[in-house]
Every structure is written in structure tokens, then in C-alpha cells.
């Protein structure tokens, strides 16, 4: 998939393996979840009230646009959450509920 973000500063941080809809992905230590996701895709979640997708907006935990669902049922705000090894993000899945 195309990506939104691209790296200007390669921190060459430790790789952080995680998954997106079950597919393996990799980020760098110190990446926020929004960065980890948007470096390899253009969306974070499905919009609840229409056919669209969302990909965040303010990056400062104000607009609340970047909440993502994890496979364990937790919802986290991608711009204020550092990506952790093993995080399983669901973008297209509805998840538990």
C-alpha cells in the first residue's frame, strides 16, 4: 500500500515488529504508533459514519481522530502511544465489542 509519511531522520533505532490486520510490519524504536502505521499505509481506521477512512489530523492528542483498535480490545490514540513490540493493530477489522 502507498504511505503518507516518510522518514527524514533515520534514527536507525531498534526494529519494532508489530502487525496490521494480522500482517507483519516493522517500525523503529521511538516511533509513535501513528508514525509506524503511516510510514507504510495511508489510513489508520475506518470512519464510523461513512465509507471513508481516517489518518489522524493534529498529532497532538487534541483532535481525537487517530484512535486505533488493537486486537486485544484496547483502543489507543496513535499519536500519543509509542509503538511496542507485538502490538496488533486492526484497521479494517471491527474487533471485539
Amino acid at each position, binding site marked *: 500500500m*502507498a504511505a*503518507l*509519511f*516518510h*522518514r*527524514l*531522520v*533515520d*534514527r536507525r*533505532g531498534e526494529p519494532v515488529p508489530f502487525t496490521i490486520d494480522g500482517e507483519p510490519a516493522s517500525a523503529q*524504536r*521511538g*516511533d*509513535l504508533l501513528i*508514525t509506524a502505521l503511516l*510510514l507504510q499505509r*495511508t*489510513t489508520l481506521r475506518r*470512519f*464510523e*459514519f*461513512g465509507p*471513508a*477512512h*481516517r*489518518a*489522524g*489530523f*493534529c*498529532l*497532538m*492528542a*487534541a*483532535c*481525537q*481522530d487517530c*484512535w486505533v483498535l488493537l486486537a486485544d480490545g484496547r*483502543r489507543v490514540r496513535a499519536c*500519543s502511544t*509509542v509503538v511496542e513490540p507485538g502490538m496488533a493493530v486492526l484497521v479494517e477489522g471491527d474487533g471485539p465489542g
Partner: protein
Amino acid sequence: MRAAEALARAGLKPILFDEAERPGGQIYRQPPTAAGHTASTIYGFEARKAEAVHRVLHDCGDRVDYRPKTLVWNLFGRRLDLLTGDGHATQSFDRLILATGAMDRTLPFAGWTLPGVFTLGGAQIALKAQGVAIGRRVAFVGAGPLLPLVTHQYAKAGVEVVAALDATPFSAKVAQVRGLLAAPSTFAKGLWYTARNRVRGVGIRNGVRALRVEGGERVEALVWRDASGTEHRVECDAVGASFGLRAEAQLADLAGCRFAFAAELRQWMPERTPEGRSSIPEVYLAGDGARIGGADVAELQGARTALALLEDLGRGVDRGAVARLDRALARQARFRHALDAAYPFPRHLVDAIGDAEIVCRCEGITAGTLRQAARDREAGEVNRAKALTRVGMGRCQGRVCGEAAAELVAQASGRELERVGRLRGQPPVKPIPIVVAAQ
């Protein structure tokens, strides 16, 4: 942090609650600790100031009780409700300084909910805190000094900036030159950014009217009208767009602080004396969280507010320091007044919002729905408009849509913006996990 520092120096031990993991707020936002490096050269001119601010807490040591990753989500009487890593906690206080900062002031435009559209502040944070760009071919739109700054920062970092559009007229800036010279070094910096931008071929276009983002699943192009009405189209894969700043004043609202409408800014903000006192005796306000003043003003206000608090506690304060701060703040106020006039709120963009455009991003409420409620359902006040249309009922509780919603209600109902009112806040100021109750 300057307030905490001043209080610590006076022998008090303030508790500093910070929602973030590391100090710096947004203007001096640091990358996450896990990223393993400190402020980069991306700060440019501000690197020295950023480092100084970041060092404040370090130098204060245990004289300031710093509580990072702590969200203050409610205030009732003299008690704060906190969300920490361990769940819910409370903190009572005798005195409280709110320095809750600002966020971008946003306006809807066609295509603004497409993936790839971020605020100008968001574009800057991506760079500062993560070393990433929001796209490879980026367009910026603004109505404030953040526009030339972010344009400069991105271009300097090697990103292709395909357009930098100012929704305010050039003439407004020319008219304010005298006032802007009240803060000559800031003014010079602004000129520097402008010059550098031009040299790089990213001259800022002023007086931009109407804009529209095109794309199927993501940003593909930006279309705008220039001051003469000519339409332009530029292909891009990301847009950073916002129009000034607005105070994050939700806790001041919950504290019961009185708010006033600033007609020239078309915004509501909590009342604040120059020394930092609010209408509630125990509550003080400093920085952009009360009224936008910028980083330098925030540092001065933080210190000045702490001195007002100390005076109110019956402590002696250094009158020389007070006088110096007051003079610096007065000079900054003249600058700020001119800057606000140099970048007037682009009301023409409100007129350009089509009925089909989404105004409330969280709930997907369109301008047409809002206008119809104002015209036909007697929703001439913004909280009534919210009750009837759901605007402002989403996760952000009106941060992004509230001002635009009020403008649209004013327009459609024919009432003055001030009479339309402001969205009233309730706790929590940000979403809290329901499981916090069980922790």
C-alpha cells in the same frame, strides 16, 4: 515550566502535571524517550530556547514534583481528577496554575477529511518529534506566523513544498509593520523565514480564497483561488492546513472561570489579568491556554503568574523582576496585537464552506445540517445547535469544529457571533477508558 521554576525558587514545591511523556509542550515538543535522541537541528533558531526550556525541570531537580503521562481530565472545586498509568487518582490544591496550551484553529474546507490532510501544527510535530514528513509533495495553508515557519522547516529538511498559501491578505501585514517592530528579533526571524522561502522557490501566496483538496482515498491535489480569483491546482500527497491557534481552555471552563468574547479574534477565552489571575481566586492562567501569545510570551507569563501567586500567598517578591516581566509582557502585547491584525481570521473561508462539507469530523455532521438547524430549527445558539445536530458531540468534544460551527450558526441565523455563544464543557476533557473505574 517557568512558573514551576519560579515557585520552586521561592521555596514552594509545586506539582507539575504533564499529559506528555517529556516536557516541552507542543512548541518545544521532544521525541519520545524511546527514540533515544534529544532536540534536533530542526528547531533552527529556537534550538537554544528549546534546550533551555527542556533543562528547566532538570535544573529544578526534586524542587518540582514532575508528573508526566498524567492527564488532568476534570476539575471540581479544589480537586483534580487524574488519569495515570495506574488508573484514576485525585489531587487537591490550594492554588492552581493552568498552562494548558493551544491547538491549531481549524476550519473545514472541501476534502479536509481525506487521509493526508493534517494541521500545520501536526505537520510540524511530525518533523520535530518523529523526524518524518507528512508527505513527499506537501502543500501548506495557513493564516498565521506558523505558515512561513513550517514551510521553512520542511523546505530546509529537503521536502518538496509545492505550495505555501496564506489565507490572509499581504496588505494586512504591511499595515502592521510598526506594531510588529515592538518585538524586533521575532520580526526579523519572520522576515528571514520569508526570505529563505522565497529563495527556495516556495514563496508564500497571500490573500488566498477558497481551497479544495482533491483525491479519492487520500490527498492527490490542492485547488485554490488566489487574491485575484484565478484558480490554481497543484498535485500533492499531503496538506498541512490550519488558521491560527485556539486556547485549550477546557479546564479553565470547568474551574468556573469567566470567559469573554474577543471580537477582533472572533474567539472566546478565559478572562485573565496581565499578571495571570483568573476570575476564580485560586486559579491562575498562563500561556496560550488562556490567550495565544506564542512561546516567548508563555515563558514570561509563566514566570509572572507565579509571582502573582506568590504575592497572593503573602510572600515577598522581587519587585525588580516583576517590573521587568511586566515591561517585557507589555512590549510583547503590542507585538501580539499587531500580529493578530496582520493575520486576521479568514472569514471568507467560512462563507466558502459548501453545505456538503463535513464540519464535525468526529460525527460527520455537514455544514448544510448545521445551517438548516440554525435557519429552520431555531438553533441560534451553539449548544442548542449541538443538541439538535450532534455537532461537537464526538470524541474531541468540539475542539476541531466548535469555532467553525459557531461561525456557521451565526451566518445562517443572522445573529452576532458573540450571541451564538461557545460550547460548554463537561468532564472528561479528553476520553478516559471506562475500565479506569475498575482499576
